[in-house]
């Protein structure tokens, strides 16, 4: 907090009262403050009252209203949600200011005049109490800030976790479980490619040079999925390069592969 009320030290005591009066009427100009340093309108009012050592039971409403409005006005770009509460307080203060000018007509059960400021004073004092209690709660010995217990703190980086004591039998049993789990839980295995598409293209071309053949005859020789896929890729690649032709006479019929004899002859291309 950098905010300071303008309470000037005067060398002569006589001037002090005069100065105070001047403050009341001519409005001390307070240095700009950050609204987000405050926790709402009550906080601002308490700040103004306490900093200027005003009597909370006899708040100079006119002065406090002007000072409050000054603080609010310097923050026009207020968040609209937040602004609402500050503006409500502004209107409360202005209403209070005008009521202070009127003769007191409201009287309580005991016949005393009701000070229109009472409600605001009650609110301010209640808030001030909680503000103080909040400070006191903050000063209580806080776990992980002031005191620590014997426990693993989640962010601990140097915690040594002792190894559990184990006997051989338990270790073997655990190892057995792991092995069992491994058997049933092979999810993904990466192996080196044992066949290449290029090799299979060579193989398919060689086969077809001996005469046309059925697709399933070519694929059926291979036991492994990998071989089937590679062969199929090889066939597709050869077809794309128009080295071979693929013919199917009707839906679901056998697919025949044959070498392209004449480069210009593409009329026999079929659908797979």
């Amino acid at each position, binding site marked *: *907090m950098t905010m300071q009320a303008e309470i000037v030290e005067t060398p002569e005591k006589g001037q002090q009262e005069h100065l105070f009066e001047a403050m009341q009427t001519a409005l001390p100009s307070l240095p700009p403050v950050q609204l987000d340093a405050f*926790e*709402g*309108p*009550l*906080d601002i009012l*308490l*700040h103004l009252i*306490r900093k200027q*050592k005003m*009597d*909370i*039971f006899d708040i100079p409403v006119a002065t406090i209203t002007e000072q409050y409005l000054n603080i609010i006005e310097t923050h026009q770009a207020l968040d609209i*949600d*937040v602004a609402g*509460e500050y503006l409500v*307080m502004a209107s409360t203060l202005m209403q209070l200011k005008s009521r202070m000018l009127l003769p007191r007509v409201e009287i309580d059960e005991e016949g005393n005049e009701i000070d229109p400021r*009472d*409600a605001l*004073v*009650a*609110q301010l*004092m*209640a*808030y*001030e*109490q*909680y*503000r*103080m*209690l*909040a*400070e*006191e*709660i*903050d000063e*209580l*010995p*806080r*776990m*992980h*800030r*002031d*005191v*620590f*217990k*014997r*426990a693993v*703190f989640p*962010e*601990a*980086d*140097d915690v040594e976790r002792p190894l559990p004591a184990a006997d051989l039998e338990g270790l073997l049993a655990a190892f057995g479980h792991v092995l069992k789990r491994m058997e049933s839980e092979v999810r993904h295995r990466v192996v080196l490619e044992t066949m290449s598409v290029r090799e299979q293209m060579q193989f398919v071309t060689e086969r077809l040079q001996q005469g046309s053949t059925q697709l399933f005859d070519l694929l059926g020789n291979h036991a492994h999925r990998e071989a089937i896929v590679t062969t199929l890729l090889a066939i597709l690649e050869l077809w794309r390069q128009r080295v071979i032709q693929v013919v199917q006479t009707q839906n679901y019929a056998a697919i025949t592969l044959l070498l392209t004899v004449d480069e210009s002859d593409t009329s026999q291309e079929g659908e797979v």
Partner: protein
Amino acid sequence: MLIHQLEAFIFASDEPLSMEKLRRFFQGVESSELREALSTLEQHYANRGIQLMQVAGGWQFRTAIEHKAIVSQLWQTRPPRLSRAMLETLAIIAYQQPTTRAEIEALRGIQVSSSIMGGLLERGWVKVLGRKDVPGRPHLYGTSKQFLADFGLKSLHDLPDSSQLMSAEDIQQGELPIQQHTQEDTDRAHEQSRE
């Protein structure tokens, strides 16, 4: 030996151990014996680096507060400072529970954001106790055991003194507190709060 058993038992526990729990595990031991042993232990640790503390209705070993600087070095991160908004909201809930968000807002004179309530709930300091039987059936909030444990309180009676607290209703009725602070008191309090 009972004292040594108790010492080991409390040391090994992650939670503050209540009398009921101790009674359950130390069957055949009179409550008065337990209490006496606890008090002996408490005195034994009174001037040590760790202390036997009574928090959240149980007993727990904790490091003494004067060693916080050295002990906190064990961790790279420190718990973040709590905002005033969060602390004030927590204070109102602690003293006014069960209370609603609207009542908290009435006392603070400003909205209580969801992030503040969320933060308090997430830390486990505040919990929903139920719903208030008024239109809208708003949640009633109160503090938890975790709050007592984390703030080193034996119970809610152990909260900082609050003789003249006003509720949201008092304020609506425009009641003034009976006991008036002297100007000096309030000034001093204010200076502290602004430091």
